[in-house]
């Protein structure tokens, strides 16, 4: 509980910072007067309600939801290195989203649906491919994730090749790098609509997940069905990834790093720290997004920062030997 309050506090601080910092700075007093309904100017009010607020809310939701999906993947495979990126879910979702954007741009919620379906197909494909590797299941999982990931990138390239190089291709490329520069309230609603139910269900699954971390046989002798739990939880986590990717493009690393950060900060039992992990993911992405839009005059894709930050953090963790390698149950 203490960890949750600290992480929530950090998240709120970063939120305030994110809202006030930018090309047009808003001071805390101005923020306050806007919130109480007495805006200093119409520009400030519009900026707050139409640009800054939807953006930071989208960023926080995306980061939190991605972090939760990473937590779920890591718990379900009893392995701290598994994430939607590793299993090819991210690439798969991107294929689905791009497909929808290219061929059915006007259908509502089709990009979410198509992202989810393609992500799910990728995850199922890499899991079934991994089941052929009997000796070292972790190696099998990572290798098959790589295979499926490359297959998905090949599909992505085909789709890009089909795109109109003058109009569609630059937009696609830019979108693929991930970013929140065009975030509007519709994005917030879309993420909320797609991820609220899965998050609630995942929260309900926290006790079975804890039992499952003891291994399949123990879970079975305690009356649970490991296969059912694993399948439903992977399904739910893939919906989460798809809901973010269809809005913000490929945002990598947050899913892997946020649960780790919480673990390094001393959370032994990660499944009872879902709130902390959500806040941590939100804060991370908020920080990355803050850098992305304020470091230079132009917008830098946010994935550059999450990748840089994630890779360096993982390197530090590896060098310090904090990553413990536990038994894997696939």
């Amino acid at each position: 509980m203490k960890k949750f309050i600290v992480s929530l506090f950090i998240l709120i601080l970063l939120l305030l910072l994110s809202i006030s910092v930018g090309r047009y700075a808003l001071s805390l007093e101005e923020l306050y007067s806007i919130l109480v309904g007495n805006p200093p100017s119409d520009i400030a009010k519009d900026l707050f309600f139409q640009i800054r607020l939807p953006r930071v809310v989208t960023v926080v939701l995306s980061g939190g939801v991605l972090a939760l999906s990473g937590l779920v993947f890591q718990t379900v495979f009893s392995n701290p290195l598994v994430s939607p990126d590793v299993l090819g879910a991210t690439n798969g979702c991107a294929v689905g989203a791009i497909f929808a954007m290219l061929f059915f741009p006007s259908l509502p919620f089709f990009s979410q649906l198509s992202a989810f379906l393609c992500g799910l197909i990728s995850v199922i494909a890499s899991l079934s491919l991994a089941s052929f590797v009997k000796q070292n299941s972790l190696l099998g999982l990572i290798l098959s994730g790589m295979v499926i990931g490359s297959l998905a990138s090949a599909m992505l390239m085909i789709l890009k090749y089909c795109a109109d190089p003058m109009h569609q291709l630059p937009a696609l490329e830019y979108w693929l790098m991930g970013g929140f520069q065009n975030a509007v309230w519709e994005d917030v609603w879309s993420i909320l609509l797609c991820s609220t139910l899965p998050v609630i269900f995942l929260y309900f699954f926290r006790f079975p997940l804890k039992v499952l971390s003891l291994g399949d046989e123990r879970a079975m002798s305690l009356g649970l069905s490991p296969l059912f739990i694993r399948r439903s939880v992977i399904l739910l986590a893939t919906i989460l990834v798809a809901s973010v990717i269809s809005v913000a493009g490929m945002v990598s690393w947050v899913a892997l790093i946020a649960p780790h950060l919480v673990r390094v900060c001393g959370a032994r039992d990660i499944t009872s720290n879902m709130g902390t992990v959500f806040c941590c993911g939100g804060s991370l992405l908020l920080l990355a997004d803050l850098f992305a839009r304020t470091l230079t005059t132009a917008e830098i894709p946010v994935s550059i920062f999450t990748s840089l930050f994630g890779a360096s953090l993982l390197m530090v963790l590896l060098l310090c030997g904090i990553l413990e390698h536990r038994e894997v149950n696939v």
Partner: protein
Amino acid sequence: MNTLSAHKITLNYQNKCILNQVSLSLHAGELVILLGVNGAGKSTLLRVLSGILKPQSGIVSYDEEPIYPLSPVKRAKLVSLLHQDTPYCTMTVQEFVLLGVAPYLHFGEIPNKTHHLQAQKIMEQLSLQSLQHRPMNQLSGGERQRTALAQCLMTNATFLLLDEPTASLDIRRQHEFLDLLTALVKTEEKGALVSVHDPNLALDYATSVAVLSQNQLTVVPRQHGWEQELEHLLHPDYSSSLVCSPSFRFHWISCK
């Protein structure tokens, strides 16, 4: 009449016969000790009885009612299996014991105050209360074993199937563990099937002994002269190295 029984269980694994027409009855209030050499199929038999492994033929039933059609949750409330490998994780003892209520929780529920009290009581019974906030991976083998038993007791199952629970214990703790189990079997009317390696432990504690040898199971109830019968049953696996002395203890005599 609480009875868990296996009827003509046959199980092959990778074209190798592990259990051949094995039958066994375990009544509540009984402590049956299962003997057999490494690889004899003791763990397999226990897993079949707990319902997590399905044999090729034969049925496991509880009071004449087959247990495979039962839902996993109902089965878990009836039979609890203590696995051979001691769990190694970062959970605390208390958290680990509390996982035993899993069969009683509805979807989305977590252990409540009653469950915590129940866990407290069981931990006291097994003298674990001083360790309850220690992570599992900082415990000794024996402490982990007792924690695992506490989790089994949390399920409140009538039948306890314990797979080599004394393997990592010193001699004194082995006896303490089996004393505790004997008391539990008597006071709480549980039926326990325990696999061990030391035939002398069987002589000391068992109400009957089941010997698994060459894929067949023979049950010897405690009665006059059962030591000789056991010696005879263990003979194919240990030849004449294992001898029962006139004072009814098994001794190992080296062939050299």
